[in-house]
């Protein structure tokens, strides 16, 4: 009898959560964020490592934040998440369980989070390869001649936030000028991106 009751409760739970998912489509909408300024960094020419300030971003607040409940942070071309461990001492405090992976496709194609692909930042390197775009295996590619960094088309960053919600992001542009001239000091670090935040904790967008 006790078990039948439990089963009933469980059923009810599943049923209602299904209903919730079906109603959730309206909740997630595409938001454009223009020129998040993560340009406060210096490149060390000897080993091409970066130093400087990470700019933290929270999907739920839809803005840059200065507290520990951030989801993703940017410094130059480096992207870290609020989950996992520091790979260098100057990174902001990690308090959450955020993770990320890069999916191939356009924003509307990414309808469900592939949770198996999510990776938290590691001690040797962040989940998203931090190579200044040189290998072209991350979110950006680096042009050896013009030194311009461009977000690779068809790369969508899929996030688990610090508090186990989900979001997807397409980085559109990395500069604050239309025709960047890195050789004249125009180094970029200004992220313009589209994102969709799923606030209800489901993996569907």
């Amino acid at each position, binding site marked *: 009898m006790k078990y039948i009751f439990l089963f009933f409760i469980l059923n009810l739970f599943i049923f209602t959560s299904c209903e919730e998912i079906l109603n959730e489509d309206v909740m997630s909408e595409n938001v454009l964020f223009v020129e998040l300024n993560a340009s406060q960094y210096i490149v060390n020419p000897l080993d*091409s490592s970066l130093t400087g300030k990470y700019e933290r971003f929270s999907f739920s607040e839809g803005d840059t934040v200065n507290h520990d409940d951030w989801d993703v942070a940017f410094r130059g071309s480096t992207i870290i998440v609020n989950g996992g461990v520091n790979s260098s001492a100057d990174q902001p405090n990690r308090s959450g369980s955020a993770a990320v992976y890069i999916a191939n496709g*356009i924003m509307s194609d990414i309808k469900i989070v592939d949770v198996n692909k999510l990776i938290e930042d590691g001690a040797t390197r962040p989940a998203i390869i931090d190579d200044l775009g040189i290998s072209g295996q991350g979110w950006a590619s680096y042009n050896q001649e013009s030194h311009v960094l461009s977000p690779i088309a068809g790369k969508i960053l899929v996030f688990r936030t610090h508090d186990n919600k989900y979001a997807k992001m397409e980085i559109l542009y990395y500069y604050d000028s239309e025709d960047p001239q890195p050789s004249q000091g125009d180094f970029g670090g200004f992220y313009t991106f589209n994102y969709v935040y799923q606030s209800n904790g489901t993996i569907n967008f």
Partner: protein
Amino acid sequence: MLSSFFSFSQNQEDSIIIINSKLKEITISATKSSISLDNLPIPTSVITEKEISVTSASKLDEVITKETGIISVPTRTGTEGLQIQGLDASYITILIDGSPLIGRSFGSLDLNRISVENIERIEIIKGASSSLYGSNALGGVINLITKKQIEDGYKINLALKYSSHNTVNPNILYQYKRGKLNLSNSFDFYKTDGYDLINSDLLKTVNPFNNYTFSTKLQYGFSEKFILNSNARYFNQNQLYTNEKLSTLYEGESLINEWNFRTSLQYFLNSKFSQELEIYVTNYNTDEFLLDSNDMVFDDNFYNHTLIQSEFKMNISLNSAKGIIGVGGIKEQLDRKDFYDMAIQDLKFIYAQLEVTTFDNINIIAGTRFDHYSNYSPEISNKLALGISLSDDIIINSSIGSGYKVPDFRQRYFDFTNSTIGYTVLGRDVAFDRLISMEYDGIIQEIFIPFSEINSNLKSETSVNLNIGARYNLSKKLNFNVNFFNNKVNNLIEWQLVALSENNTNIYSYFNINEVETKGIEFNTQYKIDCWEIKLGYQLLYALDAKVLNNIDQDTSYFARDPQTQISFKLNKDDYFGLFNRSRHTANVKINYQLNDKLNINTIINYRSKYGLNDSNGNNILDSYDRFVDGYCLWDIGITQNINSFQSFQVGIKNVLGFTNPEYISNISGRLYYINLKINLT
């Protein structure tokens, strides 16, 4: 008796060629024996001495790029490379009197190395010809035939050409024949100030250089049966070498030394049977260095390549059939900077070819070749060609052939690190060991391709080439020539990112990854009336990477960005343009006006449609959203005036419209004026 023995000797054959060439064009490269161009079922074109002369050309690139479907493209190292049927310079063999030139830079032979003042004709065979010429003859073979005196006596040609960029080009050609001795010597000197297309930097586009070529050719008949042929050529070039590092200009020198020597003995047993033993040795070496402010050498490059080839060839000629069997060997050695070790290669080969004419109107050529490498897997190449004369005016030609290219030394032994930009390229034979030791040293940050996939040899690039064409002689004045071609190249070798080192430098190695197809139509027509000769040529080309097409089909998508919103979208099949540096359309118009031996006016217009040089939107393919290089036209005019029987002069303008594209096209320097004085003594 003498004449009977000579009935199939070289000399006799030469005079036949001369007599015939006035009626019909003769070619030898396509079959390694002389055959009339009309009877040859393999796509071949011939550039005659007159065509070379009326363009007042000094170097091979000025001549060859006027041909339909042949373009020259600037290479990474500033030299020029060719493209035939959409295949690039690595897949083209260049021969002088049948012997191959060496000294390729990134696969391409610099056309400016070859002066044309002693060239009688240039034969171009399009499509795979590995069944006769072995490795590298996938796209085609270019054979430069040097001049030879036919009648007893001597001939001296002197020329002095002056053109823009302070370019001076004097040359002398001396030919002599007496009985069994036939001698031809030439000397060509070329000096230019170079030019600069971009003024905002410290470097010139082309630095000043000078070069000279000395060549000599000797033929001597010991008897009616034995004939000795020897050619020697020496080329020397000296160019200012500069580099800009951290806004400082460094100067140095770039030196090229090249020589080749060929000698052969022909034995004519009778009119049906002859044999030839040939030895060819060539060396190409370069030295390039920069000096610092204290005149100390700090950037020193060297390249030293030697090739020794010996070949024994037998020709059998029956009424309606001709056969050739050849055996030989090639030894090659390359010592250069940034090589793991000295590269050595030994090759033994055997080939056979049969030409048959049946029913008076069917020509068949069948050939096969077997190449056995000492340190590489053997290759077999075949060719079959069929020509049918439907009537006196219509000939249908078709040919199918295979081609191959062994991985070149660079793809196997390269061990190069560019410290300025920051990348490393490892040849396939050294990559595994080098990467393992780098990993052991802890300087590998990221591995993209498992090292186990590198621990094997590269395969040869192979191709299958198909040509189907027709020639229609509407009248003696007007003819049409059309050819459909298709080349499928498998196992194309390209570099791929293997790993990323700790300090963010990319490490590349070579892989057989691509499968490309080039296909198209080449159309030529020629119209002669009175003093006029008009030629039109057009090539339509599709050059595609089969893997990209496949990926698009299977929805493994490629993306681009909307230029306004920057939002990514999926590309369609129609958005894929094809391979880099290929133009869909190339065309030419040549008009020649010859007035009674006195005056000749020659004009050539070449057109090349738009093409893409790099993947500007970072999706690894060339698509319609990438930045393209605009199409362009080059227009040349030249006038030749014969003052009297032994003096003439030429004036002209090359690139009349003054076209330049400093950003993308470094080998077009703008409008050029020239004057050329010629003296012919006999």
